[in-house]
């Protein structure tokens, strides 16, 4: 396990995408990875769906919270975050392409660009969180004197931190997976590159981007004209 012996050529050169036991060929294996990832993402849809139930309930029952507190969210910063994630999805799609056509240099550049854009997103999010907490806009309630008057500032920012916090955790998870892909690609020759792992991480990354595409208008653009 620990000896770094060169991997034996288990398969014919024409099928250098390492085909595992139950699969007939690389395309068959790739299709199975794609199906498995989409089944996993279906569960993630349910997870975020439950968070949006929390959102819908507050938005319908307490629109005054959105009128009062949504304008405190920085839509300009959130627009920059949206652009960063959209650009990262673009570079991720390119990374998947370059992995399958075995262009190692371009694959590494695309993966590093995606990682940098994801890190930029998290940095902006961290700055935003620090800004809100410094202004007392947090879900933390002083039980001694803040419970009682019903939903208020801490309710709205509770929603904001829960929704964006779980999303940010997903971005962080994606960055860890991207770091792993960079290390693997760095240590692999162009002929031995495998497309499926890059594709699997890519599907996850795009999904996390899609969640943000809904969070952005739902939180940052709600109640703007008021």
């Amino acid at each position: 396990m620990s000896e770094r012996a060169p991997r034996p050529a288990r398969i014919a050169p024409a099928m250098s995408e390492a085909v595992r036991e139950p699969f007939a060929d690389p395309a068959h294996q790739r299709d199975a990875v794609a199906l498995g990832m989409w089944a996993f993402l279906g569960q993630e849809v349910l997870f975020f769906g439950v968070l949006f139930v929390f959102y819908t309930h507050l938005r319908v029952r307490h629109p005054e919270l959105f009128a009062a507190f949504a304008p405190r969210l920085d839509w300009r910063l959130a627009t920059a975050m949206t652009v960063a994630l959209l650009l990262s999805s673009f570079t991720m799609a390119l990374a998947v392409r370059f992995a399958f056509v075995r262009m190692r240099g371009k694959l590494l550049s695309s993966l590093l660009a995606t990682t940098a854009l994801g890190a930029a997103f998290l940095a902006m999010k961290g700055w935003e969180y620090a800004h809100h907490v410094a202004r007392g806009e947090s879900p933390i309630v002083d039980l001694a004197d803040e419970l009682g008057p019903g939903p208020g500032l801490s309710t709205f920012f509770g929603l904001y931190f829960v929704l964006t916090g779980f999303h940010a955790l997903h971005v962080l998870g994606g960055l860890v997976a991207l770091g792993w892909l960079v290390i693997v690609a760095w240590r692999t020759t162009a002929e031995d590159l495998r497309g499926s792992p890059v594709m699997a991480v890519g599907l996850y990354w795009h999904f996390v981007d899609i969640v943000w595409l809904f969070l952005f208008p739902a939180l940052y653009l709600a109640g703007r004209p008021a």
Partner: protein
Amino acid sequence: MNHRDGSSPAPSVGAALVVLSALLILTATTVGLAFLELPPAVHVGLALTIAAIKAALVAAVFMHLLREAPATRLVALMAAVLLAIFMLMVTVDVRHLGG
């Protein structure tokens, strides 16, 4: 178009650029619309529609769903359809039934 010949399931650089441009234009549109004086229901409807179009673009091209096997497309479609039913029932419950 066919990934079974060993080429990539992901879009070409040109196709990815077209989709990225569309996503950026839609983002600018949704930001602009947010500042118009419109009834709240129209605001929510427009924002949700644009977000859904953007999600569909990402799924179809960046996530190469259009090129996937029928079973994979069905799994993805069912996730979206079931989520829509779920959210519709929740909205009806919260708005009209006191849930």
